[in-house]
């Protein structure tokens, strides 16, 4: 299954000024298809090639996304969450290469797409909202032109038609249409982020990847943007992969949440289930790292230690050096990602489903040290 593809791409979709893609590229699954998952990521592996050996930033990540669903991807810096986003869009920069796995968008294999197919796929099928709106926007171009640029790059429309749609898009994201001739520096931080969302919405893609879209914003503005995103999704019905380090934010916006640690998903569950009943010790540790706003003021413990160096990841379960519930097996055998409750997946030896059968134990241990 894991057809090894090695890809390096240097084009980025932020500069929407790309040549028009070939017409009639493979048809993409639009919202009509309800039963099948919108996107299927299988055993994805991404390595950063460094002089001191490869760093496996994403190691065997699998998940699916249903149409209209919001999947939250949470993890600390370096856990691989942004790398996954870039792998799905195939915008990883050279030292990073996809070394295994597959990304299926509908029936299209994203990892085997040609450059031309990618041009059609990016933005039309999957768009992205970046963390820093200031860096994502072109400072010497009006926001209206930046939105129109995306539209003109992908569709046969005149400049005035594109600008008319840019106007509509600005209103959809809550910016007055007369700001169309404003330059990014004339907008506030919140408005810039809204403009970036408008660009991502321009082609009405069925999937939007949002990489820390509110991290640079103040809480009040963050709240407004989240409410806006929720409203837009209800109106337009797109799916979202929402990447953040802020778990409390995900509980508000996501349908399901995947927790990442050291390049792997360690737990995946519906948002409320994950919040009320976290099973993995890492998730539990994360939960006890946030001071609560209400309730009794209790002493928090956080998680001892710090995330591992991925050049030399710990054997067995990667979390075992920091885990308070560590057992002997944890440093020897890699736990399997298993469904231990309905729709609640976890990889931790505390759950028998996660421990591979004894016959496989030795092999798994060898696999871990490889």
């Amino acid at each position, binding site marked *: 299954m894991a057809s090894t593809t090695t890809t390096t791409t240097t084009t980025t979709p932020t500069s929407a000024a790309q040549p028009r893609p070939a017409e009639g590229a493979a048809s993409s699954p639009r919202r009509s298809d309800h039963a099948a998952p919108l996107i299927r990521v299988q055993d994805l592996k991404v390595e950063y090639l460094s002089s001191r050996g490869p760093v496996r930033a994403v190691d065997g990540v699998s998940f699916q996304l249903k149409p209209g669903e919001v999947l939250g991807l949470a993890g*600390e810096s370096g856990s691989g969450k942004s790398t996954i986003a870039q792998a799905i869009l195939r915008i990883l920069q050279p030292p990073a290469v996809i070394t295994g796995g597959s990304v299926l968008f509908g029936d299209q294999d994203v990892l085997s797409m040609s450059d031309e197919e990618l041009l059609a796929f990016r933005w039309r099928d999957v768009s992205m909202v970046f963390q820093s709106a200031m860096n994502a926007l072109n400072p010497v171009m009006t926001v209206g032109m930046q939105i129109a640029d995306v539209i003109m790059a992908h569709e046969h429309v005149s400049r005035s038609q594109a600008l008319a749609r840019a106007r509509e898009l600005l209103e959809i994201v809550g910016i007055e249409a007369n700001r169309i001739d404003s330059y990014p520096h004339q907008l506030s931080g919140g408005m810039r982020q809204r403009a970036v969302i408008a660009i991502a919405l321009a082609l009405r893609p069925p999937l939007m990847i949002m990489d820390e879209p509110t991290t640079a914003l103040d809480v009040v503005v963050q709240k407004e943007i989240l409410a806006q995103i929720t409203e837009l999704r209800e109106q337009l019905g797109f799916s979202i992969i929402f990447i953040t380090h802020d778990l409390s934010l995900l509980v508000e916006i996501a349908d399901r949440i995947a927790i990442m640690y050291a390049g792997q998903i360690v737990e995946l569950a519906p948002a409320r289930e994950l919040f009320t009943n976290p099973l993995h010790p890492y998730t539990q540790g994360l939960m006890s790292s946030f001071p609560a706003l*209400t309730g009794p003021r209790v*002493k928090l413990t956080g998680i001892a230690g*710090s995330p591992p160096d991925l050049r030399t990841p710990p054997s067995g379960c990667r979390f075992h050096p920091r885990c308070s519930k560590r057992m002997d097996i944890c440093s020897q055998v890699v736990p399997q990602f298993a469904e231990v409750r309905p729709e609640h997946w976890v990889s931790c030896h505390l759950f028998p489903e996660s421990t591979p059968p004894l016959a496989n134990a030795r092999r798994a241990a060898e696999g871990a040290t490889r």
Partner: protein
Amino acid sequence: MSSSTIDTATATAASTTADATGTPNVMEIRNLTKRFPVGGLFDKREVHALEDVSFTIPRGQVVALVGESGSGKSTTARVLARLIQPTSGQILYQGRDILKEEPRRASLHYRNEVQMVFQDPFGSLNPAHPVKYLLERPLKIHKTVHGSDAIQRRVEELLDTVGLRPGSEVKEKFPYELSGGQRQRVAFARALAVEPKVLLADEPVSMLDVSIRVGVLNLMERLKEDNGISFLYITHDIASARYIGDQTNVMYAGRMVESAESRELIDAPAHPYTKLLLSAVPNPHAGLRTDEHISRGEIPSLVNPPAGCPFAPRCPHVMPECREAMPGITHIGPRHWVRCYLHGKGDASIDGTSAAATAAD
């Protein structure tokens, strides 16, 4: 543990008017104003970064300063650290009028007693030197420890205090060999080297990974309990302010609009801005409440702002007088005050707006 400190805190009570000797406040800030000039020769304008900010730091307590970016939190810390000169106002340190006694620059003694920890541990530690060099510097400059053996012992002791063990190994490392949390602990160790009485911590955890933030917050709590250090804890995270802050002050657009014991501030917020801030904090227990009134807008421009309360343009309860003048301080509880006409005109004698304005040029 923290409840006991709150009890003693309530016993000492808040009194912005408490005087020189015997004051429970290690620092008292009165009517602090800072304006930055902007614009050219014929277009002189001013950024009103701080307007008439008054608050106290009681001995052995953590005072949190919360607010959005641009609200003046960091400017406050920098003025208190004497990194920038205020336009007007008073800083009373242990009852001494510091700006009067040391007008040009802070004395070595003041810098010894009031230390600062910065937000970004990746930027605040010199990457070219090992940890021991970074920690030796303050010891040598302030001449608190003499002799190289004693200095090395002190360096290891400092690393031990901030939870970096074994100190003999850690001190040989360079900043790049340490994780973000470890670096921030080194930054704390460096500030502690001269045994300060007050630590000004400017967003000390916001650059750190979530799983290690609590560790640094707990370190601050421990330094407060064990070493009796008073803290100014600057943050945009009001939940963490409640976690370690005894008292929480809320800033908006260069003004301090409310101050209360941390728990009371969250349970019974008085200023409309504090309420807005609290309603915006992600709350996993409640879900996204999109139905409620969300105040649009952001902090107004601080360049020559109009008269009155800076929150007026966003305030759901705005009244005509709000646009005319900023209200003074109204005490609504033993350690709780607010500057909002909804709660009264406030005490004009504490309000130093006019004095600040005349001193501006």
